[in-house]
Each structure stands twice: as C-alpha cells, then as structure tokens.
C-alpha cells in the first residue's frame, strides 16, 4: 500500500511506481504511473494537468492583440514561434501580410529560438543520461542568443515580439553584427558537441535501439517535429506549408530512419546546423522598409474560421481561431506538438527498461506547459 491507499503490487505481480510530478527527468510537472515487471515497463499512464492554466478559455475574453502574450507561456522555449503562429493566424483573418522586413526578422528570430531551444535540450539530454558537462557547454552558447533576444525585445524567454502585422519594434542597430558573431561562435562549437556526446560509447549504448517508434505509429499518433522525423516521417511545416517566406530560403528537412532515441537525437543535432544555415542566408539580406503593417487599433476578425500552423522547436503548432465577428475570439484551440508526442510515449517505452524511460522522455523533448496549456 502506498500513501494514497493503492496497491503497489497488482494481482499479476506487476509493481506500480509513480514517477513525478516532481522529478528532474520529466522536465516539468508531469506524473507518470508506470507498471513494471521486474525492470521491464508493461504499461504507462501519463497524468497531466498539473499546470493547466486554461489558456484557451482565458483567450476567449482577451482581444486579438492580447491573447498572443499568453502563448509565450505555453512552450516557453519556443515562445517567439508561438507568438508568430498567433500573429500569422490573425493576419490571415485580417487578410493582411507582414512587410518583407518584418517577415525576415521573424524568421531570423524563430531560427535563433530554435537554436536556443535545441541547445537547452542537448544539455538536458546529456544531464539525463549522466553526462554533466554538455549542460554547461550548451548554456554557454545559449547565453549569447538570450542576450541578442534581450537586446532586441527586452525579454530573454517570453519574448512577445511578434504582433499582428509584423514585429513590435525594429531591430537594434547592433543586431546584424552581433548575430553574425554568435553564429561564428556556435558553428565552431558543433564539433565539440559531437566529440563530447554524439560519439560517446556510453551515450550510444543508452540511446541506440531504445524507444522505437515506427513511422505508421508516428503518423497515427500525430507526432511531429524531430520525434516523427527520427522515424523517417516527413512533416516539416516549413517545407510542407511555408509561411513568412520560408519558401525562399534554402535548407534541408532532416530525416533519419532509425526511429530510436539516437535517430531523434541526430535529427535535432542536424537541425541546429540547418538553423544556422538559414540565418546566415538572411542576416545580410534584411530589406529596408516598415517593420509593421498598419492595422486598426481594435482588431476584429471577420466571421469565420482560421487555421495556421508553424514549426516550433518541438513540432507542428496549430492555432485554430473561430471568430463570430467580435473583438475577441469565440473559440481558440492550440494543437500543441507536445500533447501529441507525449501520447506516443507508451508505445515507445513499453518493453524497455525503466532506466531507458529517461532517455525516451528526453529525446521527445517534453515541455510540460505546452502539454497542459
């Protein structure tokens, strides 16, 4: 019997343990109930909602300018990309387009966010699997990106930089030189990343062949981002449904066919290089002009429904707005990437050892506020 009065050993002799809600490897307040046979995982039941803040309900009473700021608190590691999704969705409803300068700035900031997010993930994955040094390496480079964000919009994490019609302010005069310096620095560190973790024998043994997700399951579970691309499922929104001028930029969609933790790891490592490549193409080509389109003070979307998807650092984020013509949305639904990726956790983990659960969770790259919303 545990404290809740539940049996910890089932009739079939399975041992029931609770991981979380406060556990470092769950990367937030997630509670997993795990049924074990010896060390083997038989069943997993995720219990969500510990930080459910009802952002969807809240947005129904906010204006079309204000609801965007709540989304920075969803997936706080890709806050800018969430804002961009909402801004694009409102723009779709208003039938306006951000000026070219704003679009390019948004894309650069989005890729910087992706880089920062993947670096944090890389550090945490190392930490979860017992390597402490990557965490410090990752935070060293991430700090430079955070400083650029702070200089651009005043915030390091919850940026609130995208607004309907463009971006809130113009970029700082130092922006271009600073970004170029940081990119040079980051590029020179990729080899270090690979040396310390990717080629490490212990790391390979803990990730190769662990947490297999078949392409069919990835599609059925609606997995997106590196979780699906590690299984060879092409799903990069930037390629499938380009937005903000991604169609004019050259980059590759990274696909791995392994379907295991190592494949998902390799996808994200390669994605970092692609992000650097995208920014390098754009940083010297920011066109002159307005950084924000002219919009009315009070935004009112016409009656109808609007759907916009973007590629966040974790996968496809969909924003679905139902408007009844008023100044605040009638209904908003966020199709969050982590919610779908988490639902595939049981399929990935059943049959592997309890110790591998940590590796699986860290390569899905869970951010719990995004799951709970």
């Amino acid at each position: 019997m545990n404290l809740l009065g539940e049996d910890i050993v089932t009739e079939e002799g399975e041992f029931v343990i609770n991981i979380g809600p406060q556990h470092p490897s769950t990367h937030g307040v997630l509670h997993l109930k795990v049924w074990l046979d010896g060390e083997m995982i038989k069943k997993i039941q995720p219990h969500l909602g510990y930080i459910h803040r009802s952002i969807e309900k809240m947005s129904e009473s906010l204006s079309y300018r204000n609801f965007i700021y709540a989304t920075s608190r969803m997936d706080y590691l890709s806050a800018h990309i969430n804002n961009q999704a909402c801004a694009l969705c409102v723009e779709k409803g208003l039938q306006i387009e951000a000026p070219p300068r704003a679009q390019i700035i948004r894309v650069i900031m989005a890729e910087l966010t992706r880089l920062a997010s993947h670096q944090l993930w890389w550090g945490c994955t190392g930490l979860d699997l017992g390597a402490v040094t990557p965490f410090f390496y990752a935070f060293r480079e991430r700090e430079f990106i955070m400083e650029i964000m702070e200089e651009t919009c005043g915030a390091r994490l919850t940026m609130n930089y995208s607004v309907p019609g463009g971006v809130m302010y113009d970029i700082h005069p130092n922006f271009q030189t600073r970004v170029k310096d940081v990119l040079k620095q980051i590029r020179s560190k990729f080899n270090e990343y690979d040396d310390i973790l990717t080629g490490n024998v212990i790391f390979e043994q803990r990730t190769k062949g662990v947490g297999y997700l078949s392409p069919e399951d990835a599609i059925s579970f609606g997995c997106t981002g590196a979780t699906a691309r590690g299984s060879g499922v092409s799903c990069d929104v930037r390629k499938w449904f380009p937005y903000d001028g991604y169609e004019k930029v050259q980059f590759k969609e990274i696909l791995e066919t392994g379907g295991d933790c190592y494949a998902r790891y390799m996808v994200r490592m390669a994605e970092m290089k692609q992000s650097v490549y995208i920014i390098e193409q754009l940083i010297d080509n920011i066109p002159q002009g307005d950084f924000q389109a002219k919009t009315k003070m009070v935004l009112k979307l016409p009656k109808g429904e609007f759907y916009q998807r973007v590629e966040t650092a974790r996968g496809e984020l969909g924003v679905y707005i139902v408007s009844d013509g008023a100044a605040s949305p009638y209904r908003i639904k966020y199709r969050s990437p982590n919610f779908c990726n988490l639902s595939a956790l049981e399929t990935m983990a059943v049959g592997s050892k309890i110790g591998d659960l940590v590796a699986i969770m860290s390569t899905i790259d869970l951010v719990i506020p995004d799951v709970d919303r």
Partner: protein
Amino acid sequence: MTNEELKQSVSALFTNVTYDETGEFLNVVIDAKDLRPLILALRSNKEFSFDYLFCLTCVDWKTHLMMVYHLLSRTHKHTVVLKAKIADVNNPEIETVCDIWQTANFHEREVYDLFGVKFLNHPDLRRILLDENWEGFPLRKNYVDENMISI
C-alpha cells in the same frame, strides 16, 4: 485535389452533407450519427486517403455542439475539415475515432474534459487536464465559475 474536386467526390459518395467553403479549407458538415461511415471512407478511399488527423476539437455554439476534425492527406497534400453536429447539448454523444487514429485518444479525452462530450466505445474516457472531481465543463459557454474574477 482542390476543394471543388473534393466536394464533388464527397457528394458522389454521401448525400446527407452540407458544405461551407468560406474558409481556407473545405468544410464538410454532417450529423453526428453519420460520422463513422464518412470518416472511414475518407480514411480508406484511395482517392482521398486522409491518413493524418492533425487537430480534433469542439466548438460550443450554445444551440448545438460542433465537433471539428482536421484531416490531411500526406500522399495528395489536401486538407478537409469535417464537422459533426451534436444537437443534444445536455447529453452530447458521438462515436470515437480512436481506433482509426491513436492520437484521437488524448484529444477526445480533452474534449470530454472541457466540453463534456461522451465518446462511445472510447477505451479510457477519463478527465485528462482537470481534476477527476471537477464539476462542469469549463469551455462550455454556459459554464459559471463563482471564483472567477473578470477584469
């Protein structure tokens, strides 16, 4: 297929449907009881092959509830929005699509949690985000929370 072609192909198979083409995607509006046959046809028919359910949600229109299914075909790259109208707001019920797409499991639990729609034949219909003892369904328009402070 374009929206117009999709509309014609769906019309050839099913008669009991209405369309709404004001948005970006083709909206196919049906009654809740016709959901399963139509969604199975959209899934398995080679012409449509909608194999990817990327969004499942519900909208409360006060007089009725509207289930919304966003479907994408990865082979043909076309999208359709399927809307199933549930007329009975006091006891809303609809068939599950869990067995067709596994992602529907969590999404349907979320809709059950926040709108109170019962999914028939769902394997594990429990509240997902809120507490098990929570009263009412927060995303319904008639939901009143005494502790809520409006600014």
